[in-house]
């Protein structure tokens, strides 16, 4: 087990590094000279003096070869230093620290909401396969999956506007326990709910044909107990493996949801950094997003043998 964990970790580090390298190279070769980017923004501050600019570049280490710069960027990153924003001059780490709690609260509550709603509904749909209930649940899931957050969000807001007076429509951030969180939370959870619901349903349909389920039924075990004890557990294993995918939908979705509902989180930070071509911020957020997704994939890989002992036999034997 320990060697398995170690091997996974060893494989994981180069993947993260490679993603960072790709993003860094894009910014390095695509975005152009950061010094010029800064001066283009504030042309009045320093006269465009090639000698002076060259001196600043030297001082900032921008004349070193690409790989050396990348290595020092990674080195700083490991120490929690993400550099400074090109627009505001503030430390990127401070900006992220200010924005992260909003996104984090939103993301974690969305994952919890997804689990609470999607797994029971998926179970019901699977147990009553091809019934009217199944079709209604599944159809709704397909619709939820298809409608992007930046469509669902605004449409719900307009609907609310018809019912509520203008100023009562939720906008902005009010913390975890405020009413304003409800709408963004619902919209952010749409896609993960659809994903997990379909996954649960498919798993239930598969597990229901297993011999031990038939045996349990034959013994006269009540239907509810069969569902909870014999079907739910094996169903949870494939569902948990979708954590990485959920993470992707949430990281992607947060960008839109925060923009639509005016939440001061990482997603909005990304969008404003994009419009300003603020590359240190874009780099840092891309890194954090990829890190989160890859970390949850790693977590799934590590948890998998615990959830399904059969998997560890296969992997240990290899």
């Amino acid at each position, binding site marked *: 087990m320990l060697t398995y964990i170690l091997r996974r970790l060893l494989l994981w580090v180069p993947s993260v590094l*490679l*993603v960072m390298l790709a993003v860094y190279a894009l910014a390095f*070769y*695509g975005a152009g000279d950061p010094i010029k980017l800064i001066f283009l923004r504030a042309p009045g501050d320093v006269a465009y003096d090639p000698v002076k600019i060259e001196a600043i570049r030297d001082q900032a280490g921008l004349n070193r070869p690409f790989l050396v710069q990348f290595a020092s960027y990674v080195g700083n990153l490991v120490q929690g230093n993400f550099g400074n924003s090109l627009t505001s001059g503030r430390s990127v780490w401070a900006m992220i620290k200010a924005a992260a709690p909003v996104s984090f609260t939103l993301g974690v509550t969305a994952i919890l909401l997804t689990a609470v709603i999607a797994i029971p509904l998926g179970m019901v749909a699977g147990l009553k396969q091809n019934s009217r209930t199944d079709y209604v649940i599944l159809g709704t899931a397909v619709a939820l999956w*298809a409608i992007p957050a*930046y*469509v669902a969000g605004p449409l719900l807001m*307009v609907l609310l506007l018809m019912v509520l007076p203008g100023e009562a429509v939720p906008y902005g951030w009010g913390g975890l326990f405020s009413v304003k969180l409800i709408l963004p939370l619902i919209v952010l959870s749409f896609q993960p709910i659809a994903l997990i619901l379909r996954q649960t349903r498919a798993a239930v349909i598969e597990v229901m044909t297993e011999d031990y389920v038939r045996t349990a039924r034959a013994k006269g075990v009540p239907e509810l107990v069969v569902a909870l004890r014999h079907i739910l557990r094996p169903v949870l294993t494939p569902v948990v493996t979708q954590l990485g995918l959920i993470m992707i939908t949430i990281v992607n979705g947060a*960008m839109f949801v925060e923009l639509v509902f005016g939440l001061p989180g990482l997603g909005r930070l990304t969008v404003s950094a994009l419009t300003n071509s603020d590359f240190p911020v*874009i780099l840092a957020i891309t890194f954090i997003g990829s890190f989160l997704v890859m970390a949850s994939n790693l977590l799934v890989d590590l948890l998998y043998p615990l959830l399904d002992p059969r998997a560890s036999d296969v992997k240990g034997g290899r």
Partner: protein
Amino acid sequence: MEQPTNLWRDAWKRLRRNKLALAGLAVVAFLVFVAAFGPWLAPHDYLSQNLDLRSVPPQAAHWFGTDDLGRDVLSRLIYGARTAFLVAVAVTLIAVGIGVILGAIAGFYGGTFDRFVMWFTDMTMSVPQLLLVVVINASLKQPISTWMETQYLASLNPIWRNTMLADFVLVFGSMALISWPPYARLVRAQVLSIRSRPYVTAARALGLTNRIILARYVLPNAMGPLVVAVSAGLGTAMVLESAFSFLGVGVTPPTPSWGNMISDGLRVWTNSPHLLVAPAAVLAVVTVAFNFLGDGLNDALNPKGQK
């Protein structure tokens, strides 16, 4: 005499029984029609501004009202359909092309190349693709426009000054770059299972070259699931385009796109909600339609999955 059956005729029969998929097909067909004949269908020019009629709600002359610059929303939606459709088709073609070539070679020959392709697809599928594309778009926008400007100065050919061209190159390119891995995986899996079928062994025994076996026996038999993936992929690409335009890294205004219409509408939605509702509703209907059609095709072409 009984009609000979084949895969496609059976699939069509099954698809016809699926009401939701048929509805999806109808919407998609309508969309194709609108995208193809947009200039003849649009009641107004999508750029012409009527400053006396700004942000008016829907009325007889402007079915979906006008935006804050006095442009007809319906006409912009129709031209937006053209943008969405063009991007979706081009991106899907490029992505399927790359995916089929890499997936087929990887699956058929195996070895180091196979491992490399699989590792690469794993990588690109395990990062938030949207962020990646956004980074690609943001960082390459400037170099591409600079390059096109130098091309223009060198040749004085006005085509290099066309912002639409630059947009599309960038949007197509970056979207195709993240869209091909699922196709490559799908094709590889298909090729792997077909590779060991008796008719491939027979072809080998006849002494046919690998290339001919791959092109004539393996690939045509791997197409069924690919059709399903493409129909879903078209919908995804359309949503992706609107997502980028919404974030401001897609096509540049004034080229109309549903995504930038939604983000424009978001600024004024309290006063003129129709500017938000119209593009959002259209996008919602289209994406749901593509999904129903994709699911229907899936059931129709892979009947084994249905019990």
